[in-house]
């Protein structure tokens, strides 16, 4: 099964909802924009590690609840050398879509 555009859009909304939760605890100057291009890791503007973990866990909670599944995103990123952390929001969405459609690694 591959991720449809509709499914990808739904995942994006879950990530944005998680960003809303994350922004409640970030200082005004460090809040995360709701855009697929928003940088998460690896270069200038990357999230501080606790903020990144919070985003991953909040996203995972939402996706697991919505799809009645367990994608184990946080564990995957911690355990697997083959799964680099997503560099931006779009890559995070792709990673989740791949996990949900069974094409994910790890």
């Amino acid at each position, binding site marked *: 099964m591959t991720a449809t555009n509709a499914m990808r859009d739904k995942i994006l909304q879950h990530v944005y909802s998680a960003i809303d939760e994350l922004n*409640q605890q970030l200082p005004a100057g460090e809040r995360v924009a709701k855009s697929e291009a928003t940088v998460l890791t690896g270069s200038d503007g990357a999230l501080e590690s606790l903020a990144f973990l919070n985003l991953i866990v909040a996203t995972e909670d939402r996706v697991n609840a919505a799809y009645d599944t367990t994608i184990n995103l946080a564990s995957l990123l911690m355990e697997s050398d083959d799964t680099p952390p997503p560099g931006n929001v779009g890559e995070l969405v792709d990673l989740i879509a791949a996990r949900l459609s069974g094409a994910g690694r790890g």
Partner: protein
Amino acid sequence: MAKTPIRCLLVSDFNVGNLRGLLSNDTQSPAVAAESAPFGQVSDLLVDPSHECWNPAPDAVLAWTQPQGVIRGYARLLEFEAVSPEALLAEVDQYCAQLAALAGRVRSVFVPTWVAPPHQRGLGLIDLAHERGQAGALLRMNARLVDNLRGTKGVFLLDAQRWIANAGKSAYNARLWHMAKVPFSNSVFAEAIADLKAAFSALAGQSRKLLLLDLDDTLWGGIVGDLGWEKLKLGGHDPIGESFVEFQRALKALKQRGIVLGLVSKNEESVALNAIRSHPDMQLRIDDFAGWRINWEDKARNIAELVEELNLGLQSVVFIDDNPVERDRVRAALPEVLVPDWPGDKMLYAQALSQLRCFDLAAISQEDQARTQMYVADRARRDLAQSLESVDDWFKKLEIRISIESLTQANLTRAAQLLNKTNQMNLATRRLAAEQLWDWAKEPGQRLWTLRVADKFGDSGLVGIVSIACADGRAELRDFILSCRVFGRRVEEAMLHVAASHARALGMRTLEAHYAPTAKNKPTLAFLERSGLESMGEHAYAWDLGREYPAPQLVALELPQVPVAGS
């Protein structure tokens, strides 16, 4: 101008990064600037006042720990090692001593009780009974924590178990714990922040103290004007009727602890009051209400009038009404009034009431508990005043007694409450915590007195503060504070009399009053203008201490000893 945020230091054995962010960003008043001390070093930090986290000194500390983080015996118990209850409690005592010492350096220390993750079953069936049981040990440790810290000035215990229960199954987050040492989810932190904010408001004297209630479908089920009181849903063998009884009992408990109740309802007054008097299952009776507006007028206007009659500010009012249209109207017209959303299900009324944090108090004084009786007595005084011809007749009949005493540890809590809550009769509107007020009054040349007022209708309790600061032959009135409940009963003159008498005895030549205007203290200016003090320019008044300021007539004064000149 925005107020300076409260600087709150988070001291913990776990990562409080998320809590710090949520607390600092929370938009509910008061604003808090949260900072975190290095985590996992709780005891070291508590006993080291020179650590950089204490500089500058925070206004408050939240010392939130997991039991295994600070009590080594409990950590060993989790591994089923033998730990005697005595050894466990000795560790709790040691930790409490560290917290108590911290309270000497920081104005407020908040200590959440210890909680265990709900999934932790310990020894199962015998967990509460066995010496190595975790739940039993935790109960004993929390009881000891409460016993040790109860009454420690500046230390406030918070019930963390409720935060966990309200957050439900997601209270603990194993992934955040293992990856970032954050044990709790944001929903737990949200509960903690709400309680902490309520605590800050309570300590600042900003708790709500007047609860106004609608009647039909709020205090009882049904429309009394249509049904008659006999057919209202209230009590009886009926789940809705029992829900209203439970709600009224909860309201009565609020009243007993000092929240004033009032009624604002669209009804025929005689019909509604008759229902309150006659219905056998009414838990609240006429004398439980300080006042009411029961008519067909606009509820917002009725609220404003009743609040003025009770000499309170709109910022101290909560309004409960089942009707969302009325709630919207009051919210729009009187934004200072707190109008909580109210459940449509009547069986949830008592629960909704108990979830309101706006009535939280830092301490409960005798004056708080007797507040409604004081308003009922006020009603009787007003009735008497209307039946008499002259003011002097009224004073004679009232038999007012004013007792003036110095500041003591026994009256400090109430005095600080008055200092921080009183707006209308308040010369300088300075705000100080109880300890700061105590320290100020003990400085050389500074004196502070409290006033208690009673009359034939009842005891109004401690309702006034007057203080002077003496230097270079001048005594300056520093605080001149009086509860609006006793305005115009010649207590103001008694306050000037005691201040002037002491200033004279201390060898001062003049008594000065400098009025600092605020949006609410015009009654103070009005009194100064008629007080007999000489105007010395804008907002400055003086009394030549070459002569006595006269004691008020027809009022019995019980004065403190006047010092010997020059002492």
